[in-house]
């Protein structure tokens, strides 16, 4: 698997420029991400930000697996139905990329991740 985009999150459009990749993502009001997270107050799980990074990279032909998260800051919850604007820098030689996610121009999350080419059978402790 190379695309970490969670169910119910769709890339409306994407592109690239000198800084890296960008995408507009729609968080469906009925995304399964909100199923039980939480019943009275649905918010997008913070890990979805990392899935969106992998999904946007894959959509731009840079399918990667996540090796690490140097930092992730979640500045405010994402609610059902929001449209997000994400920017991800191209992976550097050491696999590092930084990203930022905005909603209505407000930063909702930012971070720095380390990714690498996906491992085909990298699902268990027996795999290096």
């Amino acid at each position, binding site marked *: 698997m190379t695309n970490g985009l969670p169910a119910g999150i769709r890339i409306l459009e994407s592109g690239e420029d000198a800084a890296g990749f960008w995408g507009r993502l729609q968080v469906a009001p009925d995304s*399964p991400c909100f*199923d*039980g997270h939480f019943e009275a107050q649905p918010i997008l799980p913070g890990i979805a930000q990392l899935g969106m990074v992998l999904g946007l990279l894959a959509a731009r032909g840079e399918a990667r697996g996540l*090796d690490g998260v140097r930092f992730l800051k979640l500045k405010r919850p994402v609610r059902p139905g929001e449209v997000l604007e994400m920017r991800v820098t191209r992976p550097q030689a050491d696999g590092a990329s930084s990203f930022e996610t905005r909603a209505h121009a407000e930063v909702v999350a930012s971070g720095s991740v380390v990714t690498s080419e996906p491992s085909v059978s990298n*699902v268990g*402790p027996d795999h290096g």
Partner: protein
Amino acid sequence: MAEGFPDPQHLIPHRGRMLLVERVLDWRAGGVTCQGRIPADSPFALDGCAPALVAIELAAQTAAVLEALSRRESGSTAGPRLGYLVSVKAARFAVHELPLGEPLVAHVRSAGSAPPLALYDALVQREGSEVMTATLGAYLATSGILGAP
């Protein structure tokens, strides 16, 4: 439910396909160990696997269990409190993917707090081998009836 420990559903508000923690294995001052698994209908599932980043969610829910058990020990009768995962630092993944439906073990220890913020060191294992380590940060609200890191 493990003998002597409450069902996690009585401790944290996660439900359905977003509930990963299934039982408490051990709990002592400042740390807790929980077993969990990624459900087959996880929103992150694809072709029988999920990206290993889901281990962060398991660790965050385990941190929420730790908070709930600590509150119970202190005599609080309040239910789960509102809380948010606000940061992840120095996360390292030994694998890119995790299989669905197989047991994972999360060890979480308190790494300090400055209310309403709290830090936790987390280790997630599968079959005894490390799959993820990270330091998580949570904002713990002082009131509310739902939520967890």
